[in-house]
């Protein structure tokens, strides 16, 4: 591999820090302002706790937080896996049988307009306090962006690549696997990144509506006990989860699309051939 990428790869942490510096500074400043306000304005900690207090309480209650984060993570990942498979299967179905698209898309769009606040309690009512309603809600909120992205990505296939493949003797399935699917990858990852930010929120919403354990129910209980510090601690955990998942999708994209990074490097070739 060329020199440029190996020199970055040898100091991954340093380069990551440089890239993340503006974000870290911005978040740090916001926390500082909040800390100063909470300390000096005389506001009660039961109304607005300072970040230092949130952090302190998070540390004291870390066992309960971890204990409640695990079901949330489980619901998020299983729900997301379901919605990912469904999005792939349906996108292919719609790509191979065009009329289905007109039949199904209005249904999908309507599914996105359902207000979660109203739907979550109903789903819990129908399917109980277990894992199933959480999985369903996570799938519901994450499925559509990925489906749209995939369908749009297939359409973005260069027409001439399709014509060339058919001239080579490729059938529809071959054209799909060789051209349409890889063409859709950048779109798919864009959709995946949007979806993944909804996933944790979806799970928490479902738990809020009723659960034995989970970050959502933990937040609800903390609020009812007038412990905004613990609510915020749980919010911090869910934000961290979302960030980690987001980071994983970025990593996955890099692994799945090595040509994207290659494109950034200088075109090769010199002399009369250029």
């Amino acid at each position, binding site marked *: 591999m060329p020199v440029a990428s190996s020199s970055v790869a040898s100091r991954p942490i340093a380069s990551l820090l440089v890239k993340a510096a503006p974000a870290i500074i911005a978040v740090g400043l916001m926390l500082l302002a909040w800390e100063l306000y909470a300390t000096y304005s005389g506001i009660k900690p039961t109304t607005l706790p300072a970040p230092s207090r949130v952090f302190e309480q998070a540390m004291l209650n870390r066992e309960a937080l971890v204990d409640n984060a695990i079901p949330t993570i489980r619901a998020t990942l299983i729900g997301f896996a379901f919605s990912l498979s469904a999005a792939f299967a349906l996108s292919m179905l719609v790509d191979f049988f065009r009329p289905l698209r007109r039949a199904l898309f209005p249904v999908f769009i309507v599914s996105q307009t359902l207000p979660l606040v109203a739907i979550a309690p109903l789903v819990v009512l129908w399917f109980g306090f277990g894992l199933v309603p959480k999985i369903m809600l996570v799938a519901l909120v994450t499925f559509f962006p990925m489906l749209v992205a995939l369908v749009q990505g297939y359409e973005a296939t*260069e027409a*001439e*690549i399709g*014509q*060339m*493949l*058919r*001239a*080579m*003797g*490729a059938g529809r399935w*071959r054209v799909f696997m*060789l*051209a349409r699917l*890889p063409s859709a*990858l950048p779109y798919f990852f864009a959709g995946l990144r949007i979806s993944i930010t909804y996933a944790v929120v979806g799970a928490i919403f479902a738990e809020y509506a009723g659960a034995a354990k989970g970050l959502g129910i933990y937040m609800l209980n903390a609020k009812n006990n007038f412990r905004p510090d613990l609510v915020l601690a749980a919010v911090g955990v869910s934000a961290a989860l979302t960030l980690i998942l987001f980071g994983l999708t970025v990593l996955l994209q890099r692994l799945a*699309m*090595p*040509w994207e990074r*290659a*494109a950034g*490097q*200088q*075109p*090769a*070739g010199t002399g*009369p*051939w*250029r």
Partner: protein
Amino acid sequence: MRRLELRHVRKAFGGLDVLADISLSVGAGEFVSILGPSGAGKSTLFQLLTGAQHGEGEMFFDGTPLDDHGRHFAFMPQRDALMPWRRILDNTTLGLEVQGIRRKAARARVAPLFAEFGLAGFERHFPAQLSGGMRQRAALLRTVVQERDMLLLDEPFGALDALTRTAMQRWLEQMWRHHRWTALLITHDVREAVFLSDRIYVLSARPACIVREIKVPLPRPRSLGRADALQTSTIEAEILDILLNPEPNPHSSKGHDHD
């Protein structure tokens, strides 16, 4: 011996007449060009040949009608159509893979040609890492290794700068002398057509018909020919004259005065 033969081929998209009346033939081992103004319908003709579109009229290959199943052509689209996600080596084996040849065998067949195509050392690169000229040669390599009866080349050098284009034309002429492919080339570059072809069909503007068939009796190899400069420029001037002062198009309902 005639390999490809078209008789009175027509094509309209909706109400838009694109090809009005195309009759042409390409003999075995012959290099034929189709020269015409932009938008005349040249790429459309290739769409008919590759089965991407259907038109009226008759098309024969070796005397039998062309259908969707006969795989006679190796087709190079107007843009190089390299797949950005495949390395150059895997792009060039694409046609063989589609034919069902195992990846390893396909690579073994393509690899020795990399030097001849000026791509040695770039097998593992992605298309985005190559210059325009190299991409075109990779696309050409992908086309010729399919070993079909005939090459269909749609403006292979249209997107290149003048210097690279000239170098590529010389290279292609040399390659052709070596391999003697049966080839049909689309271009709107008069010099390119004269330099490379045995015969040239000049197309009118849309709706296209063939306004002239021109033989190019210049000796090969052409890359070195200074002696034929006069004859070359005479033919070029004749073609330019046809293109720039078109006779009224009998197929156009409106008719047009100039282009």
